[in-house]
């Protein structure tokens, strides 16, 4: 064994041979799980009663609100239309041609559309949204199993691109208009009010033909959309509100089931502090340094052991808490389509659990480093705990931008690792303002900087 491996072995032996610490670490797991289970049993969601959330083709929550002027067709088909004008009702408003598997909310579709600010786009099945180019002449061709979008600026020279869509033989096909609502979020101390303002999209089409003939279109307002079509001469004007796309509620079922991890992390802070201060207080650090005078290596070995143990403890706590909370959450409204069932084998879930464990390890190492510098148990525990908890409290009472900054300058942002969903403005919880990756990066940075400082101090100071 190398000197460092020997030192890691020694530090691991130290940690596991103090019964109180082992009990505390076991307690961290139990506390995290119990608190998570308690939080899960106290939580309830009514997201599935929101009519704007329907199950998409893969079961996930989607919004399918669109005004659709369509006719039924079977087999190969070519639809052409020219968007003469589109109102700038919302930057992501869309107007174009769509083929859809019926008019039930959540059904599959393939579409080509213009937008006020984001060019001409190819769309399919709520998740595919690709910039094609620009051009207000649109054509959708379905030939056998393939769907191709065409676009042109002048109706003579066309460009084309395939659209990944899986449509049945018979589809509803025609013109559509969407215009997403404007979201207004107001944050107050401990609460957020989220409002949505309806916007109305409007588009004027001409030169509309299906398989070379003028179609006879019927208007359906799919989902909660509102709008209509009026025709005069060769032009059709369609108005519509709503959006098509993924529509997961901001609440995160993984985060909800890991609520108790905060308690476990605080226990790790206490153990991490005592792991060091129990040596400085009794002069035991001198014994350690007479067994290995390389102080940087001693500190690194302690960090490796403590970080590894914290990782293991947090992973065990996270996996158990998640598994224990899922059945409780299912009984309390956390069900598809708003909340697809999540399992430990889902990559986003185990990624969140691993990142949460890594965050716990970073906090433990940060604590060790702070304890090395201060040599004071109470100051270290109180200081680190405050650094983890205060930003969560303050962050839930300040505007979104301030909360975000707070999460990016304190290690508290690391709790964002418990979320699998992207950051959102819609929640009180300030950890929802940043991504887990950023939160973890900040915590790791804190740990690295503190460890470097501790190494410097330890080498310079008389033991």
């Amino acid at each position, binding site marked *: 064994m190398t000197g460092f491996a020997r030192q890691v072995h020694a530090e691991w*032996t130290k940690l596991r041979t103090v019964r109180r610490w082992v009990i505390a670490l076991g307690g961290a797991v139990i506390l995290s799980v119990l608190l998570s289970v308690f939080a899960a049993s106290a939580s309830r969601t009514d997201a599935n009663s929101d009519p704007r959330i329907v199950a998409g083709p893969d079961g996930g929550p989607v919004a399918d609100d669109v005004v659709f002027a369509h006719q039924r067709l079977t087999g190969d088909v070519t639809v052409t239309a020219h968007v003469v004008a589109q109102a700038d009702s919302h930057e992501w408003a869309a107007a174009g041609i769509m083929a859809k598997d019926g008019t039930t909310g959540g059904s599959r579709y393939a579409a080509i559309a213009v937008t006020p600010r984001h060019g001409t786009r190819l769309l399919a099945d709520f998740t595919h949204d690709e910039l094609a180019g620009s051009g207000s002449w649109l054509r959708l061709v379905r030939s056998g199993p393939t769907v191709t979008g065409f676009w042109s600026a002048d109706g003579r020279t066309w460009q084309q691109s395939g659209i990944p869509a899986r449509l049945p033989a018979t589809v509803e096909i025609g013109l559509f208009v969407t215009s997403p609502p404007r979201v207004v979020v107001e944050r107050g101390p401990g609460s957020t009010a989220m409002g949505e303002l309806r916007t109305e999209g409007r588009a004027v089409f001409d030169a509309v033909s299906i398989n070379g003939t003028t179609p006879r279109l019927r208007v359906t307002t799919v989902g909660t959309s509102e709008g209509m079509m009026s025709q005069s001469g060769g032009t059709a004007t369609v108005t519509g509100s709503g959006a098509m796309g993924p529509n997961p509620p901001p609440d995160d079922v993984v985060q909800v089931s890991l609520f108790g991890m905060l308690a476990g992390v605080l226990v790790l802070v206490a153990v991490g502090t005592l792991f060091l201060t129990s040596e400085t207080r009794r002069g035991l650090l001198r*014994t350690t340094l007479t067994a290995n005078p390389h102080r940087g290596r001693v500190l690194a070995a302690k960090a490796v052991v403590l970080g590894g143990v914290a990782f293991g403890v947090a992973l065990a706590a996270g996996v158990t808490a998640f598994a224990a909370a899922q059945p409780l959450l299912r009984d309390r409204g956390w069900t598809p389509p708003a909340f697809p069932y999540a399992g430990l084998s889902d990559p986003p879930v185990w990624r969140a659990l691993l990142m949460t464990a890594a965050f716990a390890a970073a906090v433990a190492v940060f604590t060790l480093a702070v304890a090395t510098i201060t040599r004071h148990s109470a100051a270290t525990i109180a200081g680190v705990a405050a650094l983890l908890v205060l930003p969560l409290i303050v962050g839930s009472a300040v505007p979104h931008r301030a909360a975000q900054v707070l999460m990016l300058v304190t290690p508290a942002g690391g709790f964002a690792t418990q979320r699998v969903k992207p950051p959102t403005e819609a929640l009180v919880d300030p950890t929802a303002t940043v991504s887990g990756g950023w939160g973890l990066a900040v915590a790791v940075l804190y740990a690295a900087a503190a460890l470097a400082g501790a190494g410097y101090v330890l080498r310079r100071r*008389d033991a």
Partner: protein
Amino acid sequence: MSSTIEVRGVHKRYGSTVAVDDLTFTVQPGRVTGFVGPNGSGKSTTMRLILGLDAADAGTATIGGRPFRSLPLPLTGIGALLDASAVHPGRRAYDHLLWLAHSNGLPRRRIREVLGLVGLDGVAGKRVGGFSLGMRQRLGIAAAMLGDPPVVMLDEPVNGLDPDGIVWFRDLARRLAAEGRTVFVASHLMGELEGTASHLIVIGRGRLIADAAVADLLDAASGERLEIRTARRTEVMTMLANAGAVVAATGPDALTVAGLGGERVARLLGDAGLEFAELRRHRATLEEAYMELTRDAVTFR
């Protein structure tokens, strides 16, 4: 095993207090060297400097010619007991030695051996929190001996030991020295080292006062004085003082004489017809020698 501890011109100051002042000495193998001085004289600081725990402002300290930091497996180079209470009370005695053994890649067999050496085999599985100071001293000595080091350095190891323990320790220290090891034992009580140390390094206020064999120190402290026990103390004192001696009463029937040789005193007493019960050379105790030395140090200042 011919490792010495060499301290060369070591100086250490904490703030405005000089703890160790240009200290130079060598501790030789094969004998027990006592390290003596009053409380606060710099013994513990010197030991920390030897172990590289505190950084010296000037000077060097080496073990077997190498600075402590460069020893590849420190526990096999020097075993040290600095503070018997430097143990975690929640850890078992065995586990305390186990992590130390792991840190230097020592076999578990050594743990049983040193626990046997210090007589703690029976309490190996007990938590250290319940140990008396004497038991902790033994555990600290066990930890120092874990790497079977050629150099052993112990700070106040007798502190807290019961009389049996003190006898045991003296025996152990002499045995370790007889094995050829360098044994360096600090104490603030000279009496603790009587009969154990054959060489002494005496410091006061961080400065070296003496670095000498115990026998030489005793001779120096004894001087040329004689002890006389006689029932006719007053007459004897008057007669010897008249003959030019410096006399002092030390008891109702005892006195000491300096300035005259033994034979001369015996003849004078015989000629005067003064009977005496005993006439012998004065033998100073180590304690007296030490008091003499430290008194000089104080006077010197």
